[in-house]
């Protein structure tokens, strides 16, 4: 870590490094691709994390119902995506949404489209595909955390609420959410952290394209340091920005979490 800090003030290629002060940091903010990757990470963060966490919460509270049948089956099915490797699911989604992939084949069969829509070469649809893939992969994971948290809530509270005539929505917003708050906070921090570090999906689903529209910061740092002429100093400067961002976001989330108490 410390050597990364030192490195971020140096520049040069490969082994030849020299001190350059803050020029790496200045350069970062005028680097369009880097700013794009920063923006992409935030798009994923702002859209994907809330959708996923809310979905996971709803599913978990549905599964917490004692009278529900086939509970184990549903739970296993929803958690199953988590057992797939990141590279694997990125490739599965890439194949599903390819020009001649299954989604397009069906859209054509049902007459919604005449020719295949190239999901992965249009900026907006490529981002949507990444978000769908992320939600698919991680919802079950977060759901397990919520389910574990719900185990610690006395089930009689729910029964009492139902006898008092509370609706499902009320039970959800007045009992489940407040009592699970510490775990929601934990999952929010873990997801934020994970989203800012996205790499496998960007590389294997879209390759960062079209024209860097879906590239993530980690992917760009990787490209800068290992794919093209290595610029370790510049890459280290960028990685420090991620570190600061993660720390700041986690701090904000903890503050927001505390205030609601």
């Amino acid at each position: 870590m410390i050597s990364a800090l030192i490195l971020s003030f140096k520049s040069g290629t490969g082994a030849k490094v020299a001190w350059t002060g803050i020029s790496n940091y200045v350069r970062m903010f005028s680097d369009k691709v880097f700013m794009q990757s920063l923006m992409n990470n935030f798009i994923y963060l702002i859209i994907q994390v809330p959708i996923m966490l809310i979905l996971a919460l709803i599913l978990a509270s549905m599964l917490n119902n004692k009278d529900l049948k086939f509970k184990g089956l549903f739970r296993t099915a929803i958690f199953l995506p988590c057992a797939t490797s990141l590279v694997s699911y990125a490739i599965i989604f890439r194949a599903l949404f390819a020009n001649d992939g299954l989604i397009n084949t069906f859209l054509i069969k049902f007459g919604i489209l005449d020719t295949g829509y190239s999901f992965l070469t249009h900026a907006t649809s490529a981002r949507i595909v990444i978000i769908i893939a992320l939600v698919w992969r991680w919802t079950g994971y977060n759901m397990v955390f919520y389910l574990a948290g719900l185990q610690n809530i006395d089930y009689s509270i729910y029964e009492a609420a139902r006898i008092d005539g509370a609706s499902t929505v009320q039970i959800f917003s007045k009992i489940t959410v407040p009592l699970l708050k510490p775990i929601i906070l934990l999952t929010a921090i873990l997801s934020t952290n994970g989203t800012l570090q996205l790499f496998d999906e960007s590389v294997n689903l879209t390759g960062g394209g079209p024209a860097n529209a879906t590239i993530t910061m980690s992917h760009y740092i990787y490209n800068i340091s290992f794919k093209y002429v290595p610029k370790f100093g510049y890459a280290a400067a960028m990685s420090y920005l991620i570190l600061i961002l993660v720390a700041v976001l986690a701090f904000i989330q903890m503050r927001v979490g505390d205030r609601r108490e």
Partner: protein
Amino acid sequence: MSYVVLTIVSILSVFPLFWMLVASTNTSVDVTRGALLPGLAFLDNWKKLFAAQEVGTAMLNSFKYAIVLTFLAMLVCSLAGYGFEIYHDKGKDFVMAIVLLAMMVPFAATMIPLFQMVSKAGLLNSTAGFILPTISTPFLIMMFRQSARSFPHDIIEAARIDGLKEYQIFFKMFVPTMKSTYAAALTITFMNAWNSYLWPKIIMSDAKSFTMPMMVANLIEGYVTDYGVLMLGVLLTTIPTVVIFFFLQKSFAEGITGSIK
């Protein structure tokens, strides 16, 4: 209502995996035609895959790295978590704070210095290089520390009086009682090790040390993608983690429950 939502979500969760299974038994042409039933091309795909890539080597490598890492990480992290909870020392809280801080550090921030260290130590393309950065993970230490909290201190005192050595207390008493935590930690570590992509991509340049995810990612780099072969590769990458997940699913949920109480 719950049933409808849960059924739809379950189908959506399982479908991409089902499709992967089906696609691996079909020819590429059938896959793009939207085949949803198992085909007859499994053996052909198998031959093509093994002819195109060194699947056996990658499989062996992945198993080797993941098993060595999982074993060592279990040992190191559970010892650390146990130590943090059971022993009292002046510097303990300070060290724990640093460990927690390290949990927030994104991998992208440490990736370049780590690469330089590993490369200076001559550990590129080696198992040691693969496992070193992740042998000790803050998340696991936290998990073991949380569960060590439920381990009664009286028993330790009693064992000491009976003349048991400290390491004997750990191996003969703590380890057997913490089975579900170990199972959860094992599942998480093995999956992370098996799925890791960025780190091996950086340090493994020799085709002989490639891992399964790297091998599969290589399959999409050509211009024409043979979907049948590709999905067979994805399938082979996915099977080990899914198997582990099914075996340890129950204790995994228990371990998570224990550690977030």
